[in-house]
């Protein structure tokens, strides 16, 4: 899109923001033109989030200046950002579950009648009107508990529009969407820009940058690495700027040589915490020497499936046979003992105790066994030796094992989980979202590790919402939708478009 008289919507000059130990933003200059879709890209921890939090008044910069519509401003709180016409859609939605779409959209600004009571009818019709104007299909009376992720996201966008936002910041909006929902979102973004809005689009998916944005700013290590018109750049060039070196977007691996069956899931049914059926009549086999992938949009039963397999959630019906044994009655510890390792999706709450030291997390599943314990008493010498070995072998970057796990970066925390899980040489490793919140360098390392496990004759079950990850690492892939397998695919024979349809539950 070309603009005749170019005006600036947002300009940030020389912003610096430090947290204890890190400079999140280091003399950042960032400029967004009026009416453009500006992509802000970078790895996790590159400083994108800090920058937009400063723009939205959640964080205050240590130094630097902000201009909105060419006027110098100080954004010391969220109210001020809203007043300046800035709206933000967070990665985790900020919605009140029991409220309707309209109640969420109008929260704090509901229209009132002469007696001071909220005029709900007026609010509902106002919301309908805005929704129609921008082509956002949302029923104002739908409760958010009952709404799909896509509708929740549209409600968030409407929330900013209802507050008259002219500059919309979307923080990784496609992370939770199917490719089709992403396309719909892009339509919405285009119609927003047609109506004169400015959009800042944060992502680390380069394909999306190329598709939707007019201009792109790349950040790394808290600094801006480059700004350019999207049409003058390429994914390869952007990736290089993001990572600071050439990246191989393809994972190198040999063809799989599957041998005997290690896991057999037969007609499994699992209920979720609300009593709904999360996994329905699910069957799958995993053999030694292969990586089986489960692809699908988050929240389609993957969590419950993995919990059921690892012994954290009861199965309601069906069989789970592991290494020839029915393990239904096995506790998680007994399953581990039998050779089943689990890298949970929620690293911070399930995978690790972030308040404990690294060594404590590393021996969390094995401290009670010889030689780590003798006669019920932990042998510190053996535990420390063991921890240091793992730290070296799995390249955990830390000053020592007597360091609080929570002080590590996301990538290094994940290495602690993986080191612990692989330390007992399991027959099968269930890896759930293993690279979520991990930087690109460490993603590569984790992928290599999974392939090494496979090549050593062990099995891997990889569950991931990152389509690129499952497709490049796994040997065969089941697409899951609403708890059922839609289709088995060979990653080499299927394209993005087709996968998108499967992930939306559509089978030709």
């Amino acid at each position, binding site marked *: 899109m070309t603009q005749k008289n170019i005006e600036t919507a947002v300009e940030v000059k020389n912003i610096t923001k430090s947290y204890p130990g890190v400079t999140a933003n280091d003399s950042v200059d960032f400029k967004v033109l009026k009416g453009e879709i500006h992509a802000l890209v970078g790895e996790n921890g590159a400083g994108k989030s800090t920058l937009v939090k400063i723009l939205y008044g959640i964080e205050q910069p240590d130094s630097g200046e902000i201009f909105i519509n060419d006027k110098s401003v100080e954004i010391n709180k969220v109210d001020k950002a809203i007043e300046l016409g800035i709206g933000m859609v967070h990665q985790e939605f900020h919605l009140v579950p029991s409220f309707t779409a309209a109640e969420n959209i109008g929260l*704090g600004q509901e229209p009132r009648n002469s007696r001071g*009571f909220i005029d709900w009818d007026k609010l509902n019709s106002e919301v309908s009107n805005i929704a129609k104007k921008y082509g956002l299909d949302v029923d104002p009376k739908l409760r958010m508990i009952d709404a799909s992720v896509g509708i929740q996201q549209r409600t968030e966008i409407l929330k900013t529009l209802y507050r008259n936002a002219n500059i919309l910041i979307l923080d990784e909006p496609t992370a939770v969407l199917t490719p089709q929902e992403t396309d719909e979102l892009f339509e919405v973004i285009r119609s927003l820009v047609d109506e004169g809005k400015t959009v800042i689009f944060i992502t680390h998916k380069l394909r999306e940058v190329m598709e939707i944005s007019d201009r792109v700013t790349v950040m790394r290590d808290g600094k801006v690495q480059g700004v350019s018109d999207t049409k003058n750049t390429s994914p390869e060039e952007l990736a290089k700027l993001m990572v600071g070196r050439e990246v191989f977007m393809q994972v190198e691996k040999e063809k799989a040589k599957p041998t005997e069956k290690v896991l057999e899931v037969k007609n499994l049914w699992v209920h979720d915490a609300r009593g709904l059926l999360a996994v329905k009549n699910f069957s799958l086999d995993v053999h030694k020497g292969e990586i089986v992938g489960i692809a699908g949009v988050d929240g389609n039963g993957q969590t419950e499936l993995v919990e059921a397999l690892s012994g954290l959630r009861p199965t309601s019906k069906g069989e789970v046979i592991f290494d020839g044994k029915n393990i239904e009655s096995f506790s998680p510890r007994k399953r581990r003992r039998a050779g089943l390792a689990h890298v949970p999706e929620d690293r911070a709450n399930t995978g690790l105790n972030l308040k404990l030291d690294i060594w404590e997390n590393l021996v969390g599943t094995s401290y009670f066994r010889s030689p780590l314990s003798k006669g019920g008493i932990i042998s510190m010498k053996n535990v420390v030796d063991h921890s240091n070995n793992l730290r070296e072998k799995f390249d955990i970057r830390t000053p020592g094992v007597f360091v609080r796990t929570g002080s590590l970066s996301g990538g290094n925390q994940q290495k602690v989980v993986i080191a612990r899980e692989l330390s007992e040489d399991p027959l099968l490793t269930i890896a759930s979202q293993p690279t979520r919140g991990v930087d690109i360098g460490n993603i590569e390392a984790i992928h290599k590790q999974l392939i090494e496990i496979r090549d050593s004759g062990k099995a891997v079950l990889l569950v991931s919402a990152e389509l690129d990850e499952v497709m490049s690492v796994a040997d065969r892939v089941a697409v899951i939708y609403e708890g059922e397998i839609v289709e088995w695919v060979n990653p080499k024979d299927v394209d993005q478009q087709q996968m998108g349809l499967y992930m939306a539950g559509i089978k030709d």
Partner: protein
Amino acid sequence: MEWLEIFDISLFRSLIRSATPIALIGFGAAMCSASGVLNIGLEGKMLNAAFVGIAASYYSGSALTGFIWGVSAGVLTAILFGFLSFNLGADEVLVGLAINIFSIAGTRYLLETLFKRRGFFSDPSIQGIDPITFDFLVDTRFEKIFSGYTPSIYLVFFLAIVLYLVYYKTRLGTAIRATGENPEAAEDAGINTLRMKWLTVVFSGVLAGIGGTFLSLENMTLFTEGMSAGKGYIGLVASSFGNNTPLGTFGASLFFGLGDAIGIRLQGVYELDSRLILMVPYALTVVVLILIGIRQRIRVRPVPIPEQ
């Protein structure tokens, strides 16, 4: 069926009287819970108010002065709760428990040092709060139903309606509910969530204060050690049973009041052991907690697996 005869107007009046302190606490607890504060300390607030109310009435000889001081005691205890929980970051439940235990010991200490009494305190110079009679109802059939209650009882009915309107029909109400359910969403909408929590806590302190003076200056004109007798906790259960909504809490409070009133009446009919009757509200509380548990269980009843 002689037991049916207990359902008469005096049962109704006794029900309303029993339900009033529970509803006052329940409304405060409901507002606190709606804003995400679990306010266990209401029992202590009520007890402090009951004691301070009677002490102030004794020294001043004025019921109004007693009332004002009693309510102030409830509010001050609420501010202490908020300061420890919000400003100093202490655990809400522990602060609430500490306040309750401290209040039992504190009022007993003051009872002994100020009035040289043990167990209870009553004196002719204490002025109680008088019932209100509506002259236009005298000698009509409505007199016995609507007239002659103390002010707090009318206040409870008034509050049920006002709180209902505030809860569902004002920005304040949606702001409080959003604060409890998703504080980030509330903050995002420019709502000061800490202010909302303070507001509900102080409001619950006012109501606990009124509830306390109801016990010592309205319902009776005396103070006994630990006279709140678990009503602070029962109010909390009532708000939970009523889903933290104003009308739900009100309904649950009437239910507790009914149980209490029936117990008292049955005592007259069957000459039951009075200690058994005194147990009724607490037994009822356990029953209600079981019902709440069952309700939650029903909510997560697993969907049946279809036959193949």
